[in-house]
């Protein structure tokens, strides 16, 4: 059930080329990432000391991970004391089973969901559907892509690859409406109407967790639309799925986390709604869920602790590194074949789901360093991208032909006379393939048909250099006379 679409070099280049040649997608992604970037920069500039705050977040995250097991136990104890059920899931299959079982115990046929990357990661919707339970996404962007049958293309804006016209067409097709692209208020109102009914009739609400707080056993959810509040307030049962690293020991720590999350993600000092859930409704509360379940998801995270990739667990999933990344801006999210795209996705996807399966992702970067500059937790993504590339060589994931080719190239380059001889041969034999100074590559080497390999020049640089030197010598001799 958990499908891991392989992202080989060939796949990545193919989907990248498709994205680059899609003008709607380019327009939508350029516009959205530019706005995110501008708002983020303004929001951080407005803080009295954003650099120090980011250093502080980094310190909190590092210290928390150093003793993660203790903090998780504190969290569990306090959450249970507040009446919540805490479940531990080793992997996606565990987590799916736990959630489906709870849903079945309550005879649920409809669950409402608020946007959650953890549930995307474990393909929870597929598992629910297989069990005959209908999951309805309630974040507007997430609902749009659910209607379209697509995965999210951005951590924060799952549908940001779509233009308003495309959304209107989708609504008209799926909901029988008659919107034009300019009627964004109308489409929003439509979503409110349709989803309001779902909120009030669903027997279970499922959410992710933006940050959990150990000292009180609370989970915190941020949304702008209010769906996070709806999902955790209206249905009688609430299930939250969280990556087990998303923990802050204290409320002071959570406050730092939240102040940087909104600002880095959308440029908001705080999201519109920050909802904190500490157990189910208390005896004298007038409303609220009767049961709260928290699923702590490992799925490969614990293996990263203490190693050279531990830093990736400091991520607060703000999406800032996506918005600044020149590669993400061109290829958009789907090319990464993972719910996590952009620089964070290029690092965490292979780490959680397999380097061999996602061999292309560590290379989806120019190593320009922009992601490190904007990351609120100052995570050194470029370093880890390089480490992953080195791992690929070490684990021999790099294709055999490429390794052979590189090995022979090194051998030849160490022998100048052989090199000169071979380039001479090449110059002769390239003739049928060369056109206007470049070689036509066979399709298999050039899936996107966008690569040009320059033909060997009629005279090598070395020959020109030697000529130049003797010409220079000649000049100086003349001057000398």
């Amino acid at each position: 059930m958990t499908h891991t679409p392989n992202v080989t070099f060939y796949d990545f280049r193919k989907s990248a080329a498709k994205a680059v040649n899609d003008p709607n997608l380019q327009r939508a992604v350029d516009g959205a990432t530019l706005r995110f970037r501008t708002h983020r920069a303004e929001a951080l500039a407005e803080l009295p000391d954003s650099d120090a705050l980011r250093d502080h977040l980094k310190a909190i995250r590092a210290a928390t991970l150093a003793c993660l097991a203790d903090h998780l136990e504190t969290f569990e104890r306090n959450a249970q004391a507040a009446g919540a059920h805490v479940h531990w899931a080793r992997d996606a299959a565990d987590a799916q089973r736990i959630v489906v079982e709870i849903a079945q115990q309550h005879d649920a046929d409809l669950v409402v969901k608020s946007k959650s990357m953890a549930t995307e990661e474990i393909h929870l919707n597929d598992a629910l559907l297989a069990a005959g339970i209908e999951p309805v996404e309630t974040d507007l962007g997430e609902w749009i892509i659910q209607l379209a049958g697509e995965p999210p293309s951005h951590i924060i804006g799952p549908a940001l690859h779509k233009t308003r016209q495309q959304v209107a067409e989708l609504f008209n097709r799926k909901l029988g409406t008659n919107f034009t692209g300019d009627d964004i208020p109308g489409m929003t109102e439509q979503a409110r109407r349709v989803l309001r009914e779902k909120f009030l009739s669903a027997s279970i609400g499922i959410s992710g967790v933006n940050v959990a707080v150990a000292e009180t056993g609370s989970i915190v959810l941020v949304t702008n639309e209010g769906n996070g509040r709806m999902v955790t307030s209206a249905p009688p049962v609430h299930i939250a799925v969280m990556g087990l690293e998303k923990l802050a020991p204290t409320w002071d720590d959570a406050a730092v986390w939240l102040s940087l999350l909104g600002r880095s993600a959308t440029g908001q000092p705080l999201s519109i709604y920050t909802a904190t859930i500490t157990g189910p409704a208390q005896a004298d509360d007038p409303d609220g869920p009767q049961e709260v379940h928290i699923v702590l998801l490992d799925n490969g995270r614990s293996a990263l602790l203490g190693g050279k990739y531990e830093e990736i667990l400091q991520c607060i999933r703000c999406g800032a590194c996506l918005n600044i990344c020149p590669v993400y801006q061109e290829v958009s999210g789907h090319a990464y074949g993972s719910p996590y795209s952009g620089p964070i996705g290029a690092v965490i996807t292979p780490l959680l789901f397999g380097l061999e399966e996602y061999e292309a992702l560590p290379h989806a970067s120019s190593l320009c360093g922009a992601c490190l500059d904007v990351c609120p937790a100052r995570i050194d993504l470029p370093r880890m991208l390089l480490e992953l590339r080195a791992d690929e060589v070490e684990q021999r994931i790099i294709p055999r032909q490429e390794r052979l080719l590189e090995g022979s190239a090194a051998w030849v380059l160490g022998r100048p006379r052989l090199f000169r001889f071979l380039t001479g041969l090449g110059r002769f034999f390239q003739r049928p393939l060369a056109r206007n100074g470049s070689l036509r590559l066979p399709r298999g080497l050039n899936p996107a048909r966008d690569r040009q390999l320059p033909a060997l020049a009629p005279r090598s640089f070395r020959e020109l250099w030697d000529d130049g030197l003797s010409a220079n010598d000649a000049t100086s001799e003349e001057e000398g006379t």
Partner: protein
Amino acid sequence: MTAREHILGQLRDNARGDAAPPAPWQSRRQFDDMAARFIASLEKVKGAAYRVASLDVALDKLGELLQTLEAERIVVNNEAPFDTLDLPGRWPEAEWHTVGQAGDLRAACAAADVGLSSADAALAETGTLVLSSGPGRSRLVTLLPPVHIALVPAACLTPDIFTWTATRHAAGLADAMPANLILVSGPSKTADIEQTLAVGVHGPKRFIVVLYD
């Protein structure tokens, strides 16, 4: 071995264990006029806030708002300052539902034009109200109706989220969490369609705060 033991074991084996957590972040915010900053921040996100001299004036303002909104059905939390006021007596034209009274609270919230509440705290920096659940305090009152109006003592203002958490610690409240605690920083909104702002997705379309002395 249970999943729990397995995961905790793996975490313990791998973790460095050399934690040195930093001292809590100290707020670097100071506002000469916290109410003014609160109002400005809220207006930036299309919320509205007013500052008035007393609870009486706040109630006048509320009356004015209810009239312009043409509110016919109103749900209200049973909390200070409303619990000692006879709101239905003041505005008999409207249909009132007070949390705790007989009847279906959820249906009343779903049908209401306005939800009325107070707040625990107001964060000046971000124009944020802190709402908590508890006896007489419903989650749906401030969530389902298209308009949420809050009457909040200006004394609840604190500079930012850090001074708020610090005050809670100082008051020994940090451990006493309500089941539901919400920070609201504006009306419900989305930018999910081409990053174009649309107000009122799932929560209230209008968020109006009256701060009174």
